[in-house]
């Protein structure tokens, strides 16, 4: 307890530094702007802006505070296009459209937007409070992790990824494997042997993380936008003067609370982020509040509050395994993890002791960011809504320019520009074929950690594979991994058989 308070003290000292405070505010604002753009989700926003944030030459904690602000803000901004346009910015915002858009069509856009801002604020705040306590607890526990435990943890992370993300388990797994295989390119750190470099000097140190991120999440998104391009303008619903009432909050308070907790814990699971969290929270609330299915889907405030609270709860929850274990909880936190590695900060249990200014500074900046987002969002929502009318023919070239500027400014190598374009085409094909891209980046980021721990574990045991299951912690993690794969299959079987039974009756 005292430790947490001391940590928070350190953190707020970092986050309240005028320069960092300005970065939080700017990041939240820019993130909301990007999140509000139709079709661009948090992950794309962070990916496109990451190289620029890196090239600015800020100290690591400042750059991370800026990126976290953008990530957080984009989760907020996503709801605007969901509610007003019925176009979700990313998978996490799909559930918001179900009840948010009907409210706006009913002429209650203002009420829907302000309610979702409040729900997001509560979800985010609960998540960051839980994170302050759980984070250091988990870190203290994880300090004892052996390499074999880490291998088990990775297996668990990829198992939950494969089972919960994407449409097809095999494709998600293959996506992660592609990422892992990309990560083996370059010189092997422990023996100095070149792997898959084919004598090209540019990739001796491995394919640059930024190139992969911008290619898969910036350029592939751009191609997707061009493919989906609709002629004529999307019609936005007007933001009216209606506003959230205390009565609404009284009705939705348990929904918001439950969904925040659901969101946080699903976010903590490695590999699963906002999209799973918001879907589970919406489903739970629907079953609890509206079992007959009368109001959900037609503009029920609880149906809007649930996914929004869960969304932001998950955004905070996903930071926990990233900071404490070095295993990201979602695609976007995988990018943040890669950003930490670029600054030579190794996330993991020791970060809270060795670099408290970064770990706690980031957490403290999220407290501030939450408040800032609420304050920015309530009055300025009309301004953000106007962004929705930016025609795609201006948006598309802007994305390309941002991506090019960011990648070029890192080392000034024009070859990288061709590389991101090529990776963009590859990413577009993956997306078209229902592979999700988050597993690829997760595999890429975790590749060397996975391999090194496996090799270290086997060196310790002298080649005996038994070491992988020698410890209660590893066995527990393998059991969890098995559960996370088997449970959803079993549940869906059971649902199907009960459906079949009720159909027979």
């Amino acid at each position: 307890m005292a430790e947490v308070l001391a940590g928070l003290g350190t953190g707020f000292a970092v986050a309240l530094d005028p320069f960092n405070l300005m970065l939080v505010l700017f990041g939240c604002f820019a993130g909301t702007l990007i999140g509000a753009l139709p079709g661009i989700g948090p992950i794309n926003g962070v990916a496109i802006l990451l190289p620029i944030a890196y090239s600015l030459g800020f100290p690591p904690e400042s750059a991370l505070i800026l990126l976290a602000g953008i990530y957080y803000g984009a989760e907020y901004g996503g709801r605007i296009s969901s509610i007003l346009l019925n176009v979700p910015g990313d998978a996490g915002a799909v559930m918001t459209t179900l009840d948010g858009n009907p409210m706006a069509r009913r002429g209650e856009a203002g009420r829907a937007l302000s309610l979702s801002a409040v729900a997001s604020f509560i979800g985010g705040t609960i998540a960051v409070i839980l994170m302050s306590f759980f984070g250091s607890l988990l870190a203290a526990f994880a300090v004892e992790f052996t390499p074999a435990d880490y291998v088990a943890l990775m297996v668990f992370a990829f198992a939950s990824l494969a089972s919960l993300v994407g449409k097809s388990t095999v494709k998600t797994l293959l996506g992660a494997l592609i990422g892992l295989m990309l990560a083996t390119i370059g010189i092997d750190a422990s023996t100095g042997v070149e792997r898959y470099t084919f004598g090209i000097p540019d990739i001796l140190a491995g394919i640059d993380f930024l190139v992969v991120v911008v290619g898969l999440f910036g350029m592939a998104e751009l191609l997707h936008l061009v493919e989906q391009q609709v002629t004529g303008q999307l019609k936005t619903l007007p933001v009216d003067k209606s506003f959230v009432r205390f009565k609404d909050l009284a009705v939705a308070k348990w929904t918001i609370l439950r969904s925040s907790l659901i969101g946080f814990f699903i976010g903590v699971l490695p590999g699963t982020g906002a999209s799973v969290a918001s879907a589970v929270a919406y489903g739970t609330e629907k079953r609890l509040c509206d079992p007959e299915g009368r109001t959900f889907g037609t503009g029920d405030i609880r149906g809007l509050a649930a996914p929004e609270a869960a969304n932001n709860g998950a955004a905070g929850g996903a930071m926990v395994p990233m900071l404490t274990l070095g295993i990201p909880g979602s695609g976007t936190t995988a990018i943040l993890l890669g950003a930490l590695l670029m600054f030579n900060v190794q996330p993991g249990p020791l970060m809270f002791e060795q670099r408290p200014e970064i770990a706690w500074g980031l957490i403290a900046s999220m407290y501030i960011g939450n408040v800032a987002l609420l304050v920015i969002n309530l009055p300025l929502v009309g301004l953000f809504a106007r962004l929705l009318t930016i025609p795609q023919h201006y948006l598309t070239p802007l994305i390309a320019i941002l991506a090019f500027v960011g990648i070029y400014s890192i080392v000034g190598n024009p070859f990288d520009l061709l590389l991101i374009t090529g990776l963009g085409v590859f990413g577009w094909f993956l997306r078209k074929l229902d592979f999700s891209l988050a597993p690829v980046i997760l595999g890429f980021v975790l590749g060397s950690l996975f391999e090194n721990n496996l090799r270290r574990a086997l060196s310790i045991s002298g080649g005996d594979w038994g070491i992988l299951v020698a410890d209660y912690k590893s066995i527990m993690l393998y059991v969890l991994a098995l559960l996370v794969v088997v449970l959803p299959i079993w549940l869906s079987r059971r649902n199907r058989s009960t459906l079949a039974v009720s159909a027979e009756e």
Partner: protein
Amino acid sequence: MADRIFAGVLLLVTLAYAFIAFTAIQAPFQYDPLGPESWPRLLSVVAIGCILGILWRPDNDSLDVARTTWFRLAAILVLLVAYAELFEPLGFIISTFLFSAVVSAMLGARPARALLFGAAAGLLGYVVCVMLLDLNLPGGFLGELEWGVSAPETQTEPSTGGTN
């Protein structure tokens, strides 16, 4: 079908990857039970398994992209490659002006507006990125003309962040 073609290509790449892992990668001497080749071998075996799974049971028949859309995608790809190739020789301002004007016109902006947008993107982008944010962008010949100093060129110092 689309799934099968894509999986087939991936299979070829993975087989090549596996071939290298099983034959070429070798540490001159090593003390550890797992060398640099073990992990790629493991990955390639699992990946081949997954790919065979997709080949056996594909779930996407076609990409479902209309013909005109293919043309639009091909055009944007050509423009992106051209932008990448001209980025350094022409400098940021001119290449960005050309790229954004052409792309926005292609995607439906009126010609006059597309030109205006391109000019704004090139000039404002340069001012913001180079003068305010101090990023490293190619000036091209304009950089030398306008400010009388040689703007950041290729192969000069990497920007402040350095490489990783």
